């Protein structure tokens, strides 16, 4: 029992600690532009689950390739997908009837 839990315990505690950091960051007066910083502890938590619980490091090259491909293509989607909206000059027609 102890042999099983002991290596996983730091992962769990680390996650809770990062969670506390994340929650704390949310109440800092960061402003709109830096609000994205909150995602840093979240990214660390994702990494911790990936390597701690899902044991990404222990799988073979194929599984790691698949995981890497997922992250790469996610970045392509987010990067190229936000390029247009972020650089667009919008002249909105604000006549909108909000229900």
């Amino acid at each position, binding site marked *: 029992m102890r042999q099983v839990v002991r290596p996983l315990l730091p992962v769990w505690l680390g996650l809770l600690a990062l969670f506390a950091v994340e929650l704390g960051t949310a109440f800092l007066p960061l402003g709109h532009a830096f609000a994205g910083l909150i995602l840093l502890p979240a990214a660390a938590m994702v990494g911790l689950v990936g390597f701690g619980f899902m044991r990404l490091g222990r799988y073979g090259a194929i599984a790691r390739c698949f995981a890497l491909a997922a992250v790469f293509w996610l970045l392509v989607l987010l990067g190229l997908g936000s390029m247009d909206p972020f650089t667009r000059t919008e*002249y909105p027609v604000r006549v909108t009837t909000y229900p």
Partner: protein
Amino acid sequence: MNLSLPEASANAPETDALIGALLLLSLAVLALVFGLMLLYVIRYRAGSRIDRGKLAEKSWRFEISWTAATLVIFFGLFLWGADLYVRLFEPPADAEKIYIIGKQWMWKAEHPGGQREIDTLHVPANRPIELLMTSEDVIHDFSVPAFRLKRDVLPGRYESLWFRADTPGTYHLFCDQFCGTDHARMVGDIIVLSGPDFRRWLAETPSSEDLADQGQDLFIRYGCSGCHGGNGAGGLSGPGGTAPESLGRSPQGGTVRAPSLVGLYGSPVPLSDGSVVIADDRYIRDSILEPGSQIVASFQNVMPSFAGQISEEDLVKVIAYIKSLGAGGRS
């Protein structure tokens, strides 16, 4: 069968030159591909007794050099196309602005002089025209093949498209983005007239009530004049003027201070948060629809939002009126 398409704008021959270059390149490549295929297929058919000899050694250098050459050619074509395209996004400052509203399934156009047309657009030759286009429902596409131009017309925002027509005549206007049942009938004519003809057309077109004139009526009808003054000269001790007859009365019966609109267009406006904005079309539009977002310094935000209260067409007219107050009142 007429296989030629008129080049009726300054942009058209330039685009055609690019298409021509692409066509030449394509024909050269096709000739190479089909030529080699035919040559090999005949020369090396199974029954042919030609001596094949040994296979040539594969040369990486050959593959890499022709790939690099193709890359260079493609990069040149890319720059050429991009250069023309970028110019489509830079309307000259003196371009005449015409509003286009697309809806299922018609095109409505409004000239600065208030002339309105449906499914037809008269434009003068050799003058830059900028179209400010929006849609009332779905996405449409304003396409004029003779100008080699098109641009999607979206609901909720303005798209701009500019051109300089140079050959008088009548050309097709198509909706190129599928927009529902009668998409194929959302067509019209672009009529390019020479300068004098166009002026004659403007003069002869009935109901050519000035946009700004209509706007003035609406300015009163929507109650704007109540606070901003009957001729936009501002409320009590507004920065512009304090004519007693223009004192507005709020619905509660009190006197309301509202900024003067005379001379507003194009001038810098100090805001309550300390920043300064230039009063352009967009600022005026936003101030009508979202008065609370940019409050003029030393005024309070008491104006109600007109979002949802005023139609797009009316808004265009009110803005035209306010613009006409631009240089110190209307002439």
